[in-house]
């Protein structure tokens, strides 16, 4: 039978974990909205114009960036994507080591695709590309006409528009500086960002929300464990009077906390699967890292407070 104290613990931390999950979900969704409304570019992208395409195939751009060659406003070739996972409704995006001519397109383009041997195909310059994924969100947007291609021959142009994009503005800036140092005659232009981030200025608000979430969670952990320690003060003191080792008391205390955490995480997973209906969040590395850090921080704070009480009162 679960005691009332443990029930309070489990309920409270279930709410906190769900809050953390909602913030992660918000950040993921926000990033998706920014991409979808800015033609599948982040706010960090930058543009180069070059007559020579070959040098870009071997340009080192790091693990977190991607390189495109724009054919026109709606069509671009992916030179390098480094495990990027844009919002995909169906199928998948280009993965490293992918072979053959593949395409990932918007919803409107999918409707116009040809069918060949059970596959959906689009053509560009007499080359056929197999559609392996559909981009976009669950609403219409200008990205519905987008075509991303991989593996085919890029049509010859007088001048290529090369787009460097990534999740970190700092990294993009560093790569840009390196490229401009290496090729000083290259033309580099900062593009006009469009979409929800510019129309509403959401990025600043997103950072504020994250900061508030982080500080709130830290405060909550601290205050709750001060409260928890208070609730167990008498019990721990009795154990101390009975001659139980301080270390054993701490072990018993931590075991109780970890057991309660396990229940909280199980209930939260249930909520995510049944209410939010989003299994993708559960496998997000960010969530796993944050939860791990959260539990670790909680244990450290709990132990710290208990230790403080022991030193003060159990001497």
């Amino acid at each position, binding site marked *: 039978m679960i005691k009332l104290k443990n029930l309070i613990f489990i309920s*409270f931390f279930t*709410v*906190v974990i*769900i*809050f953390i999950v*909602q*913030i992660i979900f*918000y950040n993921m*969704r*926000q990033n998706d*909205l920014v991409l*979808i*409304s800015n033609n599948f570019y982040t706010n960090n992208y930058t*543009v*180069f*114009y070059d007559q020579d395409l070959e040098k870009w195939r071997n340009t080192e751009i790091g693990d977190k960036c991607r390189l495109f060659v724009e054919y026109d406003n709606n069509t671009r070739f992916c030179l390098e994507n480094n495990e990027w996972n844009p919002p995909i409704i169906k199928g998948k995006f280009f993965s490293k080591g992918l072979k053959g001519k593949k395409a990932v397109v918007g919803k409107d383009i999918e409707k116009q695709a040809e069918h060949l041997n059970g596959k959906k195909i689009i053509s560009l310059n007499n080359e056929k590309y197999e559609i392996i994924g559909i981009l976009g969100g669950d*609403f*219409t*947007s*200008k990205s519905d006409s987008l075509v991303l291609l991989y593996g085919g021959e890029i049509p010859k142009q007088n*001048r290529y*528009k090369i787009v460097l994009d990534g999740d970190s503005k700092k990294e993009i800036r560093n790569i840009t500086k390196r490229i401009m140092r290496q090729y000083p005659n290259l*033309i580099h*232009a*900062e*593009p*006009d960002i*469009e*979409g*929800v981030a*510019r*129309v*509403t*200025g*959401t990025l*600043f*608000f997103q950072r*504020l*929300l994250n*900061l*508030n*979430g982080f*500080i*709130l969670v830290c*405060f*909550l952990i*601290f*205050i*709750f464990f*001060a*409260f928890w320690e*208070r609730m167990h003060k008498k019990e721990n003191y009795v154990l101390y009077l009975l001659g139980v080792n301080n270390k054993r008391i701490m072990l018993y205390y931590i075991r109780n906390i970890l057991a309660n955490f396990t229940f909280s995480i199980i209930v939260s997973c249930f909520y995510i699967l049944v209410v939010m209906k989003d299994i993708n969040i559960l496998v997000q590395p960010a969530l796993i890292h944050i939860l791990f850090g959260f539990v670790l921080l909680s244990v450290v704070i709990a132990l710290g407070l208990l230790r403080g009480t022991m030193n003060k009162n159990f001497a």
Partner: protein
Amino acid sequence: MLIKELILFYKRNLNICLFVYIQITIFMVLIGTFYSFIYDLDFENSDMKKMYEDNAIYQMIDNYVDGNEFNKFVVQKDSLSKLKNFYNGLENAESFHYITIANQHLLITDQSIPDKFAYGYANGMEVPSVNVDNKVYKPIKSLQINLNGAKFFNLKAAEGKVWNEEDFVIQNTMPIILGDSYHDIYKVGDKLHIKYLEKDINCIVIGFLEKNSKIFYQNNLEFYLDDYILMPMWNYIMQPQSEFEARYQMMNYFNMINGYLVTKNNKNDINRMMQELESISKDASFDGYTFIGYNPHVKKYQDISVILQENKNLIKIILTMSCILNIILILFISYLQYKNERYYYNVFLIQGAKKSFIITLKFLEIMLIVLAAFLTQLYILNHLLKIGEFATYIKAGYIGVFVILSYVIFGTNLLLNNKELKIDKEEEV
């Protein structure tokens, strides 16, 4: 005694009070930013709604794209007056608004203007230096817009002013408006000398647009004006005195008769618009126009509208949970305070203090912290972040009211129902 007790309370619980102060300040800043953000979002939505919802927009161009056709028209004696009359008819139409925008660059001698303002920069064109009459010019991005267009897109000045009707009448100095990115380069009142369509024009800066001002142009609902110089489309009433002036006016009017006709999206209004347009064309003896697009804005407006709404809903969920967790935090703190402080309150009660004293003390404990947090929030939002208005800050203050109520009600309840000390139930508050 109340003040003495308060001071003692804060000295004993400095860490916790600081804790609460920081958390409530951050949360109030968040709420203030949220309300400002929602206000901007709603404003943006309603602004766009006013412009694009229930409006039919027809794009019109002239038929003289072909060089031969153009030359044939231009050599006619009355070609310029036909264009002028046609444009004036459109500009003064009653059944529709006529919006015309042109993307003609201008030349400026100031070479220190950064390349990002140069014409063609965004398309990767090399910024040329144009040599005219032994002077070196830089081609700069600019837009020309008529009065109807400026009114329709609700252009607002962050500094200085936007045009009024008099600014569209020819004068010695052309009043220009600059995009927000020009803030570091020019200021209101600065005089510029430009070359536009080979003509020398003196200009004066009358204002800067708000950051991220945008219009619907070139099929893009988000055509941002931050990097542009905006010029008013002057109506050249007087006859040209020279061939150069005639050519200049001709080029201007050819730009001016390409634009958008905007009317209400119902059959009657659209019919009225078509009839009036035909009448204008007959009166001006000019029929060289074609419609090339209808409601090009609708899908794009709906797309953006949906995305803005999605954004708003996401944030509301997070903030609601933040509110609940903040209240829970305050309740925990109130409980811990009760545990720490109950002996002191017991002593007060034994010494004959009334319930009202306890309640007042508890109220003042939290109220001063919340007041400090509120004032800090005001300073941060108003002076540091410079977002929102007074109403936004007051709304953020409502959170403080919730916090105070939670703390006082819960804390007082614990204290006054304290089993360790029996309190006379008949004692008056």
